[in-house]
């Protein structure tokens, strides 16, 4: 433990860490590096919500929340260091906001019995709770995203994608590669052609990919990007005058940071989302009153209500609800990470619950179970309105093609179980 390092270096014995009767939440954030622009608002939202609970309600179930932040710079080695440094403090759940770090942590959290919540990212087949007992990825995952995008494009094309071409511009890493297999299956099913255009980390160099798009004129472009890659891609799309309404990003490619740099011409760009947008919710009044006005806001406080701030807050809200559920199940307020897992596994998000929190109609309803750690795959499409300067939902929540996704999840998770000698079961 780092206490030992301090002690060894200083030659002074230290007392035990922070008071034990607290709910410890670790925020593996990144406020630096090529992904910092997107990491900052997420982390701000995540922290502000817990600060709000501390300030307004005195924590959750009477227990204060002890928030620890650790900077990973989206780097797996630093992420591992952060995890090891903080797990001994009694962390209840980890939310690393990085598919790379998620892959590192899946075996570690399983051995250490700490739940991992990878909301809308990470390893998609972790939806199968029979194999991935400590990993959760509700309310939606990458494969849901691919299917939702194809569904929307099909609607846009008049009900059929036969003979059309979809180009996938993706971050050339585990994150970007995740949807490929699903898209291949979907292209067989719906008869469209799939063009794959990888973009290397961090994603500033995309000239050749967009040259190819200009030459081949795909009917639709789907993007799996993050950080600086999104901005560059949208700028390039503007440069080649690609019709924006045919250009769609996954939920990680749809924040204000990504489109604003490209100016008015980015108007009409679409992105998926699994939660609602804007700041027109009662909970924001509380955040303003208890967090911002008292000077306790994380970061500069300028991102409130932006897409990624909302997502961070949504993640914190789901964690807080899981803590509440765990407290109810076990009848104790000071829960352990093992009890937290039960809370997550029995989490049920209903409209009444969200309205009660102050976030009516904010996210899809879903119920987690032992078999299904990934929710029901509901998402919606948002569109950038450059004039108003905000993303707007243009569809209702609709469900992904479970027929295609479920067998893929089964196949991938069983392969993982076989590789790692895991006995699937609840």
């Amino acid at each position, binding site marked *: *433990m*780092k*206490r*030992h*390092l*301090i002690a060894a*270096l*200083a030659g*002074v*014995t*230290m*007392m*035990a*860490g*922070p*008071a034990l009767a607290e709910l410890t939440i670790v925020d593996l*954030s990144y*406020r*630096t590096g090529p992904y*910092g622009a997107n990491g*900052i608002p997420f982390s701000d939202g995540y922290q502000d919500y817990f600060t709000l609970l501390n300030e307004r309600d005195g924590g959750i179930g009477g227990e204060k929340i002890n928030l620890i*932040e*650790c*900077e990973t*710079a989206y*780097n*797996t*080695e*630093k992420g*591992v*260091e952060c995890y*090891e*440094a903080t*797990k*001994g403090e009694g962390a209840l759940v980890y939310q690393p906001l990085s*598919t*790379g770090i998620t*892959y*590192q942590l*899946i*075996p*570690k959290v*399983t*051995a250490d019995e700490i739940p991992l919540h990878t909301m809308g990212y990470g*390893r998609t087949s972790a939806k199968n709770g029979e194999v991935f007992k400590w990993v959760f990825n509700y309310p939606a995952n990458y494969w849901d995203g691919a299917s939702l995008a194809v569904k929307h494009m099909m609607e846009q094309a008049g009900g059929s994608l036969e003979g059309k071409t979809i180009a996938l511009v993706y971050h*050339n*890493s*585990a994150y970007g*590669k*995740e949807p*490929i*297999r699903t898209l291949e299956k979907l292209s067989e099913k719906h008869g469209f052609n799939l063009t794959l255009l*990888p973009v*290397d*980390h961090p994603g500033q160099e995309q000239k050749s990919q967009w040259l190819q798009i200009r030459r081949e004129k795909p009917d639709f472009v789907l993007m799996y990007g993050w950080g600086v890659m999104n901005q560059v891609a949208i700028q390039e799309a503007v440069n080649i005058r690609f019709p924006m309404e045919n250009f769609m990003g996954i939920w990680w490619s749809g924040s204000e940071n990504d489109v604003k740099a490209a100016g008015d011409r980015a108007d009409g760009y679409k992105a998926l989302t699994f939660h609602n947008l804007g700041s027109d919710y009662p909970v924001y009044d509380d955040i303003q009153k208890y967090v911002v006005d008292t000077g306790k806001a994380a970061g500069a406080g300028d991102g409130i209500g932006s897409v990624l701030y909302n997502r961070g807050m949504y993640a914190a809200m789901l964690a807080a609800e899981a803590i509440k559920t765990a407290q109810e199940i076990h009848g104790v307020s000071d829960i352990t990470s093992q009890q937290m897992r039960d809370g997550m596994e029995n989490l049920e998000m209903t409209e009444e619950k969200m309205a009660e929190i102050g976030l009516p109609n904010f996210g899809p309803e879903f119920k987690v179970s032992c078999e299904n750690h990934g929710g029901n795959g509901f998402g919606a499409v948002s569109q950038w309105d450059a004039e108003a300067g905000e993303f707007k939902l243009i569809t209702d929540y609709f469900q992904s093609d479970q027929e295609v996704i479920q067998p893929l999840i089964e196949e*991938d998770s069983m392969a993982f179980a076989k*590789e*790692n*000698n895991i006995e699937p079961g609840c």
Partner: protein
Amino acid sequence: MIYREAGDFKTSYVDDSQTFPIRFDRYGYYAALVVAFAIVPFVINDYWVNAVVLPFLIYAIAAIGLNILTGYCGQVSLGTGGFMAVGAYACYKLMTAFPDVSIIIHVILSGAITAAVGVLFGLPSLRIKGFYLAVATLAAQFFLVWLFNRVPWFYNYSASGQISAPEREVFGVAITGAETAPWAAYLFCLVFTVLSALIARNLTRGMVGRKWMAIRDMDIAAEIIGVNPLRAKLSAFAISSFFVGVSGALFFAVYLGAVEVGEAFGINKSFLVLFMVIIGGLGSIFGSFAGAAFLVILPVFLKIALADHAAVSPVSNALATLCLAIFGVALLLFLAHLVLRVFGRRLWKDLGALCGIVALIAFFAYALLSGGLGWPTDIVAHVQLIIVGALIIVFLVAEPHGLAQLWRVAKEKLRLWPFPH
């Protein structure tokens, strides 16, 4: 005083040419080995292993590898990350293809495969050198990363393109995978690090090493006195790549367990290892260790000192206040010294430097004793970048031979102390 040669007689050439000719050094080395092998495994925990010790040991092997090539043979290489990736992917393919073979053999074979790849990319070094060679090895870096991303065979056609290490054992003890005990991973890497250092040290002071150094110092002169440049350069590439490959295999299999090639073995890794060699000291085995320790521990240290915040006991609180006071006084004296110098006066020759160092030490002592300063994590991350960058510049300007040279000078002074003249 205790560190001296007087009375330490050598009666044979073997004695005289050993790695640690001074008795005190030698015993220190033995003591360090005993501590590392017999004591540390019993006290080490998860955090120490995963955050500090494993990266240190593994990067030390990589630094030794690069030091052989760049420090001893003078062939600039920016391809270290790519060669580490070769080691990692070779290890992955071997682990999955031959699950029953011991992981020790896999790691060594990964090194051998990397050596072959290294020789291939070392071929241009026969015609080009300096900057041109740096660019050629840079091409190797990008090519290898692209290759491992592009060809699904290397990652066994997995959906995400990640490779992850399955559980493998040595003598029935898990070495890779999540269930690995901290001491097992530590000892496994320690054995490889110690052996690498031993082999490298003995190679570099034998005939092979002398040929490398001859090529480094002046290749034409070396050729005239009978060194075959082809064999010298290619052997340097092969042996260097062997070590880098071993470190890549350990990095993937033991330390991280799952790897994404673009991120884990990108160009940043090449630079990191190069900085280790520069800060540690070109052409020195000790320097490889010093550089690796420095660049692995410094960020962790800064993070603990500046970003974390923990409750502390009253005793250390009082000590922290004391340190803060010392820091204040030293800083004031330092500033006063600067002001006086502007007006052309000096209080005492070394006062400024001394006060600066004392202020720095007092500040970090204060930070540690008060359980971390709790600064925002992004500011600390930027401070880390500034400090590491500044240190590289300072070392290049003030002491191009790095920490190893500082260590050497300190030892020279100690041997003469207290009679410097």
